Each structure stands twice: as structure tokens, then as C-alpha cells.
């Protein structure tokens, strides 16, 4: 633990921030894995234990009528196999808040001025500024995959606020493969802390004046894996044999690089 704290200060030394703001930060070192399947809101999924991508599986965000209709349309596309995951085009990040809902493993790098959430399945780096800065002014920001996250430590709890997201505006980001989406106006407050030595919990409150009628609360948990666990690189473009057609169908290529799918009649 002592070593971890020293490391934190050394990492931050370059900024001078550590000398000005002596803080005791929690130890979230190690390699972690999200608990449960890649359903964004496991508490409201229907049917219970439904898996993202299976026909008819859905969650119950407090959508307004317009965005419930968008979700319904996506659910129908999933049923027809015509709802491609944006990340199938390798190199596209999952984006926030989906980055809190990915398979494979996570690492959390804590320094006084910033926290980074790193996912093995990516490319994703969620940068969270904890040096007291504010969000960029509205006229100085634009929608990005990870958005703009600023936060603070409340004891052992990291509280951060995320805006300036792409959302579903250009069909760039989804929350999961049921077809769950929010708009570019979403604003997410996340409270993250260790609830025991081997479990991290993230409580998210999602607001979206375009899509939701009230705040939506979602909780995700992450379990620490054995100390010997390593994270590896994830070069999605290394051997992607699943290109997406213009109409949204995901193909399967044989070892010769040609689709093995039978033509659609």
C-alpha cells in the first residue's frame, strides 16, 4: 500500500499537482472484470437473464415516446440481424457510458490530477480530470466518444460528471446490443468506490433531456481477478473476418477472405 501511494505521487510529480494537493487515494490496482453479461441495465432487462443481441431482449429506461420508438425500431433491427454494433468497424471506441459495460478486463489508474479507466477490449481510455478543473464551456466542446469527464474524490469515492458525448446522433455509440441508445445531450454522474476488497461499484445517474423523462439509475460492478492476471493488447483490425454491409448485415469471411454467407434472396 505504501508503495502504491509513493507511485501515485511519482506519477503526478511532473505536474507539480501532488506537491500542492496532498491527497490519500484508494488502491484500485490490479485487473478487474465486469460482473454479469454486457447488458447495460441488468436490473430492468426483459426477459430476466436476457442477453444483448438476442431477439426481443430489452431494458426499461425512462424513455419519452420519441426515444421509446427509436428503441423499438432498433429492437426490430436486432431481430432481423440488421443492427450492427458500431465497434464491428475496428478502431471505433465503445464510448461512454458503454465503456462501463464491456467484456474482457479493466484497469483503473489513479493519480492525483487524473483517473484513467482502461479497458482491454477497446480502444477505450476514459480520462477523468480530478484536478479541480471545470467542463469545457459549451461553445468550446463537441460530442466525442468518451466525452468530457471532470470529478473529485469524496473520501474513497470517485465522483465524476460526463458531458459532450456523441450519443446516437450519428449512430456512433450504443449502450449495448439490445439497441439501447441515448442522445448527444446525455449527462452522466458516476459514483465509484470499492465496496469490499475485491469489488468495485459504479453507480451511474443518467439524465438526457432529449430522450428520458426522468433520471435513470444504473449500477455496474467489477470483480478483481487473481494477481497473476495480465491484460493484453486488443488489435481488433488484426484479423477482422466480420465486415458489415451497407444495409447493416454482418458477414462472415472464410479463410480465403471471401464471405461464406449465402446471398440474401
Amino acid at each position, binding site marked *: 500500500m505504501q508503495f502504491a501511494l509513493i507511485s501515485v505521487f511519482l506519477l503526478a510529480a511532473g505536474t507539480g499537482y501532488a506537491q500542492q494537493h496532498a491527497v490519500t487515494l484508494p488502491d484500485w490496482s490490479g485487473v478487474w472484470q465486469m460482473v454479469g453479461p454486457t447488458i447495460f441495465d441488468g436490473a430492468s432487462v426483459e426477459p430476466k437473464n436476457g442477453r444483448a443481441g438476442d431477439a426481443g431482449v430489452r431494458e426499461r429506461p425512462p424513455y419519452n415516446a420519441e426515444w421509446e420508438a427509436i428503441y423499438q425500431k432498433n429492437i426490430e433491427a436486432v431481430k*432481423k440481424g440488421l443492427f450492427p*454494433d458500431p465497434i464491428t468497424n475496428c478502431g471505433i471506441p465503445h464510448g461512454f457510458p458503454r465503456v462501463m459495460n464491456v467484456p474482457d478486463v479493466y484497469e483503473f489508474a489513479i493519480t492525483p490530477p487524473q483517473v484513467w479507466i482502461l479497458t482491454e477490449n477497446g480502444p477505450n481510455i476514459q480520462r477523468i480530470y480530478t484536478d479541480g478543473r471545470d467542463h469545457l464551456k459549451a461553445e468550446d466542446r463537441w460530442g466525442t466518444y468518451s466525452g468530457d469527464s471532470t470529478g473529485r474524490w469524496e473520501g474513497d469515492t470517485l465522483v465524476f460528471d460526463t458531458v459532450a458525448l456523441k450519443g446516437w446522433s450519428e449512430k456512433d455509440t450504443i449502450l449495448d446490443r439490445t439497441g439501447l441508445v441515448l442522445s448527444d445531450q446525455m449527462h452522466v454522474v458516476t459514483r465509484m468506490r470499492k465496496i469490499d476488497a475485491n469489488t468495485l461499484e459504479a453507480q451511474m445517474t443518467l439524465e438526457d433531456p432529449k430522450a428520458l423523462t426522468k433520471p435513470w439509475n444504473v449500477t455496474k460492478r467489477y470483480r478483481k481477478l487473481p494477481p497473476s492476471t495480465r491484460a493484453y493488447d*486488443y488489435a481488433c483490425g488484426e484479423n477482422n473476418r466480420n465486415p458489415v454491409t451497407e444495409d447493416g448485415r454482418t458477414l462472415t469471411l472464410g479463410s480465403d477472405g471471401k464471405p*461464406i454467407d449465402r446471398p440474401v434472396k
Partner: protein
Amino acid sequence: MKRTIAAIIIISGVCFVAQSALGHHSAAMFDNQKVKELTGTIKEFQWKNPHVWIQVYVQNGNGVKEEWSVEGGGPNSLSRQGWRPTTFKPGDAVSIRVNPMKDGSAGGQFVGAKLADGTTIGNWDRAEGAQ
């Protein structure tokens, strides 16, 4: 090596197995209610991101050799279940159970495999219709 695979699968339990089928794309092309068994020999094992691929030669009903493409999880998560780049070697005799492609083409999503020495990996005992 094979003993290591079995041990890690037992230790890691269902949480790793449940995630292993997840990939970077829609799985709509696979019929996850059906399990088809392929028996043949390994042509090639592609241990690469974002998914491993097992290329296997299978004799079809007419005695003609066909190449099947079997898609697995990512090498990172599979390595934590004990898989290695040498888990399948060219020429190995193997039986592989897959969720076949809905359109009947020669492909499927990996469910489980039985190697020549009888070692099983993955979800070999998964029944039809189960997930």
C-alpha cells in the same frame, strides 16, 4: 497443457465461459438454439484478435472434404481460460460443437471441442436450446 486447460476451466467457472462467446459484432448469423457437431481435422488455428478462428476439414454426407470456419472468443479472454496458440494444431483430429450459421453455410460459433485424447474444452456438454 491439456491438464492446465481443464484446471483453469474448473477454477474460472461460468463467468469466463459466459463472456467467451461475446465478440465485437452481432451474432445474428448464428443459431444459438442449435448445436451441430463437426468431426474432422484441423487445417489452421488463427490465434488473433478480435476472434480466434478454427479452420477444420470435415467430410460431408457425400464424402467430399469441406472446410468449416468456426469462430471463437478473443484470444485474451480465452488465454485466461487456459487456451494457447497451440490448443489446436494442423492435422489434429477433433470434434467441435458449434452454433451453426442460420443460412446453412459452412460456419459456426464455437461451443465446445473434444480433442483426440478425450480432453474437452469449452461448453462441450451444452444441450440444444440451452445458452
